[in-house]
């Protein structure tokens, strides 16, 4: 599948943003009400990242001026649900922020904010996980991976902010390291399944001619390109793929885990946590680029020459 930058940025940014909002909500629910600089920076970053992602997602639309229509089909469409849930989550987060500002504990609103933030991330992942046509995406681990990355991003950013504004992050770096570790465990399993699952659709099943022999394309329907090939015909080179997976894992997994561990041992905690956050987000951009570039669509069985 064609890796569109607007969508890559959207999933990474809104995933991290809703992760931060979920972290703020959970903190309040557990009675660790975010205050002062932590409060302000947390909400600015949480709202900023999630809204920047949502705005970016409209950039790839043919008619962004009609985007409001996408809120209407929540009964059947995950994309529509995602839009509606994002608005509900942001509204709840707004109410939660306001209640804290007015001196409240925000326990209930915090819990609701966290829940709806995570449900929003879940529905983002289901836009991809529901597509039977893209086998690599259509597996139960897809939402797990999205949710884990969102939680890990939220925890990392929250730990960094707590370090800077609340004078110490306590167990937060350890929690964040655990979540990063978990997320990459899920991701490695996801990769494995995607690499080894037997293919669902073949040129033989696509043409129904398998009983006659092995099917391959002799002539493409047109000598020029077309929308299908542009959108779904993207193919990544094997060498590239292996290299990028290493980069994603290194930046998004190994660096943040070690950096947070150093921070939890009291070694320049601010610096190491900042490094963890930046490396994690960078690694996630590579991971999300691969998410699209590696995925193969069933329509390409009609364009197979081998």
């Amino acid at each position: 599948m064609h890796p569109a930058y607007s969508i890559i940025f959207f999933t990474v940014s809104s995933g991290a943003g809703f992760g931060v909002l979920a972290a703020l909500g959970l903190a309040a629910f557990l009675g660790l009400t975010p205050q002062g600089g932590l409060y302000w920076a947390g909400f600015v970053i949480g709202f900023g990242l999630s809204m920047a992602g949502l705005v970016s997602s409209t950039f790839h639309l043919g008619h962004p001026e009609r985007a409001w229509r996408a809120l209407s089909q929540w009964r059947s469409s995950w994309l529509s649900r995602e839009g509606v849930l994002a608005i509900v989550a942001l509204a709840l987060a707004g109410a939660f922020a306001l209640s804290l500002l007015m001196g409240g504990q925000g326990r209930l609103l915090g819990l609701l904010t966290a829940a709806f933030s995570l449900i929003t991330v879940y529905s983002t992942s289901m836009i991809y996980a529901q597509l039977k046509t893209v086998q690599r995406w259509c597996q139960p681990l897809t939402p797990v991976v999205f949710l884990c990355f969102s939680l890990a991003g939220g925890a990392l950013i929250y730990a960094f902010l707590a370090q800077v504004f609340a004078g110490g992050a306590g167990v937060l770096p350890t929690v964040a390291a655990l979540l990063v570790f978990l997320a990459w465990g899920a991701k490695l399993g996801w990769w494995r399944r995607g690499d080894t699952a037997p293919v669902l659709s073949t040129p033989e099943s696509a043409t129904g001619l398998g009983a006659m022999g092995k099917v391959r394309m002799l002539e493409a329907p047109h000598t020029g390109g077309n929308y299908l090939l542009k959108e779904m015909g993207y193919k990544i080179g094997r060498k590239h793929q292996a290299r990028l997976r290493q980069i994603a894992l290194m930046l998004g997994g190994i660096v943040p885990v070690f950096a947070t561990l150093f921070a939890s041992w009291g070694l320049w905690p601010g610096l190491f946590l900042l490094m963890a956050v930046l490396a994690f987000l960078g690694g996630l951009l590579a991971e999300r680029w691969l998410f699209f570039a590696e995925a193969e669509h069933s329509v390409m069985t009609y364009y197979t020459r081998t």
Partner: protein
Amino acid sequence: MTSLPASTAVKLGLVIDLDTCVGCHACVISCKEWNTGGYGSALADADAYGDAPLGAFLNRVHTFEVKPEEGPATVVHFPKSCLHCDDAPCVTVCPTGASYKRAEDGIVLVNEDACIGCGLCAWACPYGAREMDPVEKVMKKCTLCVDRIYNENIVEEDRIPSCVRTCPAGARHFGDLNDPASAVSELVAARGGFDLMPEQGTGPVNKYLPPRPRTPEPVPDLPDLADLAADARETRAEGFFGWLDRALERL
């Protein structure tokens, strides 16, 4: 609503005969022509006369080679357009309600005024039956010529999809596939019509008819061409030149 109708009483669709299709692409051109002037916005091309032309098409003809374990390969021409699936995944993913399946006849359509051009439906279709219009930026797909088949302003024999009307080989058939007594249903039953990618669970309405088996006799062993030529030379020489030829040879 992009929820699918529970069932449709009529299932209009195409039956495509892979035995008869000669791969002339006439249906592709007639489809493009009709849909450039008919339903919805024109079916556009980008850079039509430039270096990298890119157009939207609702029907494309692929050509495949089918190679058995032993023996020569077969060439099969393969027209492909929307199959108007019963469980159309393209419809349920649409966030705006622009994509819908008609309860009365099963035709899957796009309301272009409501389409935001997100392209998710094209991702959801396993067959590549939807293409984004490069100029209008809305999703395009086969309408089964909904603006012809019920159109009382055109003569009766034209009230079938443009591709079916055009096909010079008679490889395309149109009718109600829900009615077991319809000509198309009988054709499907008689010829063993099949679904494309049944494993995707889309329940396509359109059916394909397989190429008929090859003539069973093996190709006879051809005599050596050099021998044939030599024989021909000998028997050709008759009359005066024949006598001359033989006389000269005897010298």
